[in-house]
């Protein structure tokens, strides 16, 4: 694409080193700090001095943090599952059925990410408070579904659009009902899309801070993101080793999902944002 002139070579190597350093060194510094013994946290060596798993062990044996981790898993799996299911139903409906108001509802779904989250929170908080849901996982699970819904509906709609109507019509002639056709013939063909939406929903829920800080008032139900903020930002003197170890623990699940399911993930990422 570019001619390998001297100027381009200089640009290439300078970018590779400088941007590469900016992109990769901070995460290595996080790991490095987490692995240093407590009395050496403030020294500047980079993997070249004594290393220990003490900080990590401290974090994973802390019952409070493990409770947050468990809560995060419940909430993220719950909302990811719900979002995928609801988005699949909606995407299928938009793709294969024609009824009045369809275009309007599609437009509304598409707009939903354009509402400022913090302002919605004011009313969601009041509503969940009245419904008595602030002490449970439900307030978070239901709220997170909304963030995956537009992307999910669009991605899955485009999957269903590719499935020819004749497939459904011949199944109908064979006497299959609408719901059997959906569950046994159409949905299995969209499984890759569903996986990418499930991952998207999981990561969103796992990483959210604002809603989990607000919509969960019971400490025993806190998710990891808000739990860690409450744990570490309230302290008078910060233990950076613990903080970096906790950050690694919080980052591992989403990173593992990403590494193993990267193909689905990038698909979800690109189809979601550009197709709206």
């Amino acid at each position: 694409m570019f001619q390998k002139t001297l100027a381009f070579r200089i640009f290439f190597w300078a970018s590779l080193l400088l941007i590469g350093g900016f992109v990769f060194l901070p995460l290595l510094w996080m790991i490095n700090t987490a692995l240093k013994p407590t009395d050496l946290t403030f020294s500047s060596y980079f993997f070249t001095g004594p290393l220990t798993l003490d900080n990590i062990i401290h974090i994973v044996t802390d019952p409070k943090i493990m409770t947050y981790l468990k809560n995060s898993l419940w909430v993220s799996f719950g909302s990811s599952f719900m979002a995928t299911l609801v988005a699949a139903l909606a995407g299928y409906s938009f793709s294969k059925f024609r009824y009045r108001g369809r275009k309007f509802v599609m437009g509304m779904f598409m707009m939903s990410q354009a509402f400022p989250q913090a302002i919605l929170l004011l009313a969601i908080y009041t509503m969940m408070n009245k419904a008595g849901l602030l002490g449970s996982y439900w307030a978070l699970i239901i709220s997170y579904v909304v963030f995956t819904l537009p992307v999910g509906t669009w991605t899955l709609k485009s999957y269903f659009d590719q499935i020819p109507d004749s497939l459904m019509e011949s199944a109908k002639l064979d006497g299959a009902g609408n719901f059997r056709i959906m569950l046994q013939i159409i949905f299995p063909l969209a499984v890759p899309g569903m996986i990418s939406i499930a991952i998207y929903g999981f990561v969103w829920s796992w990483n959210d801070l604002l809603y989990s800080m607000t919509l969960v008032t019971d400490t025993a139900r806190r998710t990891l993101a808000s739990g860690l903020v409450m744990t570490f930002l309230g302290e008078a003197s910060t233990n950076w080793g613990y903080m970096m170890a906790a950050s690694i623990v919080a980052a591992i699940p989403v990173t593992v999902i990403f590494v193993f399911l990267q193909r689905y993930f990038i698909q979800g990422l690109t189809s979601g944002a550009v197709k709206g």
Partner: protein
Amino acid sequence: MNTIRNGRLSDKQVGVLLILPGLAIFAAIILYPFVDAVLMSFTDRSMIYPDYKWVQFENYQKVFKDPYFTKTLTTTVLFVLGATVLPYVLGMFWAVVLNQGFRGSEFLRGVTLVNWIIPGTAIGFLWSWIFNGQYGILNNVLKALGILETGIPWLGQTNTALLCVIIARTWQMLPWYMAFLLGGLQSVSLEQVEAAHIDGANNLQTFFRVILPGMKQTAMLIFVLGLIGNLQHFDLPWTMAQGGPARATTTLSIEVYTTAFKNWNMGKAATVGTIWAVILACFSAVYLKLNNDENA
């Protein structure tokens, strides 16, 4: 599909039935809260007292007279512009580098995305540590290089705190821009690029006259989406500085959160939120326009 019946429900009814769960959640979590919040902005509602009354435009008058609100708007504009332009440009450079397809470039692309995938909380902690005034690695490096005599409390002073948050946000979002821009670069017709080179265009001319126009839609959409995302962003200014020091990192999202959930002034929070929603709607309109043009 035509109207073959399956006994009880017509196709139309099935279609509507399938959309109901999504519609119900949308109504409960987006539509109703939004209307409720806009109404709230005309009341003196607070979290502490259950009673409230209508105050018409009193909240709006107060907010627009409030010198802090102007400051919040300026901070938001600086943050949104800085935290979009910086990772956009660096993400473009990085996409050009990775697009060269050298050995290991696929691997680098994957590892880069890890920065974007991990929780904002972890990223906020990491950069607070890097910028730490006493023991942070940035100060240590600058001191070792002889650039600084004593450490600077980067996040503790008003003139550097916002920049620190912008840099952390750049680190988080660079992979996201890179992923899209790399896709854009790969969609550009190589024949046209070759033709430009044969006509004697140098790399820069080719980039601005052939490559960038060839990926114009993606390039513009991503920029607008980036602006919208930053206008909504909460995690990093909060974990790194809680909107401080002296409101230096208080953007609109931080302001709404603190007004509502720290000062329990729902009426005022809803007012700021409604003004913010109007700003956001303008950007979203641009996005929808661009997206429709692309699909058309």
